[in-house]
């Protein structure tokens, strides 16, 4: 059943902008992205919005809906009350380009800073063999759709622009964890780099990244905290450090 939905949509650019009121028809079963498209088609022809798959798999339509980082294509209009006004803004951790579109290139720069997978030198293409139980932890992290909602909600950069230089963010901590847990990755000092170059120590594990992840990746419990513990192994645990000098220990490189 159709209803008239009250919305406030942020419109503007890097210099200026404001929330604009709009009333739009919303039909049963529609998501917020649907009604944004209707606004674009009927009332705001130049409204900028980034989207692609409309299935929660491309990560393009990330925005903030009633103040929460969400995918617009996965947010049911019916989840809000009949009289409730839905407020839609661009991601507030990144520079705005226009209306609901932000510049997320920060994330691509950070991605390039992460040392890539390094297999053993004598491993030829097609020869990699791994057991399922050795890779299943990493597989959870491969579900990431790079919507960057975790990056947006992380207060380390959301509330402190100056930290962007030294902090990779939760999306890239799961990348680091994925590689550090990879059974065939042999790169040394990945843990030290995570702490010293990618800012793992800046995270105070308040779990907002996990709360907003549309893929339900347990970012904090399964990636960030395990990485913090691995960092403790090599940097803050003299007993384990001594143990590695006496006897080769798995995982401590």
């Amino acid at each position: 059943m159709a209803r008239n939905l009250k919305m406030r949509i942020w419109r503007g650019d890097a210099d200026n902008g404001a929330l604009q009121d709009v009333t739009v028809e919303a039909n049963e079963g529609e998501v917020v992205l649907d009604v944004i498209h209707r606004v674009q088609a009927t009332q705001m022809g130049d409204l900028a919005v980034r989207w692609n798959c409309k299935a929660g798999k491309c990560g393009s339509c990330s925005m903030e809906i009633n103040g929460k980082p969400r995918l617009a294509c996965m947010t049911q209009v019916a989840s809000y009350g009949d009289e409730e006004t839905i407020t839609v803004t661009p991601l507030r951790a990144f520079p705005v380009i226009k209306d609901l579109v932000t510049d997320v290139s920060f994330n691509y720069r950070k991605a390039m800073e992460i040392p890539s997978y390094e297999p053993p030198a004598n491993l030829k293409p097609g020869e990699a063999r791994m057991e399922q139980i050795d890779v299943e932890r990493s597989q959870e992290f491969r579900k990431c759709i790079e919507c960057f909602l975790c990056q947006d909600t992380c207060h380390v950069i959301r509330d402190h622009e100056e930290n962007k230089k030294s902090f990779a963010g939760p999306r890239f901590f799961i990348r680091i964890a994925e590689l550090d847990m990879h059974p065939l990755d042999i790169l040394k000092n990945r843990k030290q780099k995570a702490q010293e170059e990618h800012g793992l120590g800046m995270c105070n594990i308040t779990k907002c990244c996990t709360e907003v992840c549309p893929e339900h990746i347990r970012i904090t419990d399964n990636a960030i905290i395990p990485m913090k513990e691995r960092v403790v192994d090599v940097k803050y645990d003299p007993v384990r450090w001594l143990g590695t000098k006496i006897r080769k220990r798995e995982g401590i490189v």
Partner: protein
Amino acid sequence: MSGVFSPTRAKIKERTLRTDKWWLQPAITFGVLISFVIYATFRAFENKYYFVEPLISPFYSPCLSTSCIEGSSLLGQPFNNEYFGIGISPSLFILIFPLGFRMTCYYYRKAYYRAFWMSPPACAVAEPHTKYTGETRAPLILQNGHRWFFYFGLIFNVLLTYDAILAFRNAEGNWGHLSVGTLVLLLNATLLWLYSMSCHTCRHTLGGRLKHFSKHPVRYKLWSWVSVLNHKHPTFAWISLFGVAFADIYVRAVASGAWTNFYFF
């Protein structure tokens, strides 16, 4: 101007546009934790009503000071009851270990960073601080010592479990009795084990640090079990906290004569 009010970001004057009761959870956390801290501080300094055969309060076990009530010292009395002329409650010699375990716990960190330090108060709610260095500098870099408190915590779990076993005696020291106090101490010990076993450090120590689970099937199995418990770590953190407080309240009430420790047999 920094954070969400940085020059390049969307010009929105509100610190958050969340319309739900985002403040409720940190407010409850603050209320519960501060209540516990006040009660625990009072009890740590009270220095009485902590032992009555066969029950001992978890706040005072093991009782290691010369001022400990006769029969309450499981591991002897290596500490004096005063130093530099200042009387010290036996509780103060041991409190750092369970306190440190909880203070550095990954779950409690989330809870108190949000509720007390408002860093951030809730997700997508701008924090009030102008500078942030996380856990990279003193004193917060000491959070990396969580595993040491975990190891000490295990020793305390063993001792408190032993206290619960000793509570299968009656006030005269005869074995084979069961009282409400026995159940209270057993429940407390059980909850503490669940809290410790579900800990992230425990999960890491048992198998999380491995690269090849397939080469360590026993540790993989242990890691898998602890991972299941780890899902419930916040729950265990809270109920074990209540368990400790309740065990102490019960022992205090019995020791002070307010309640009678009912014996089933």
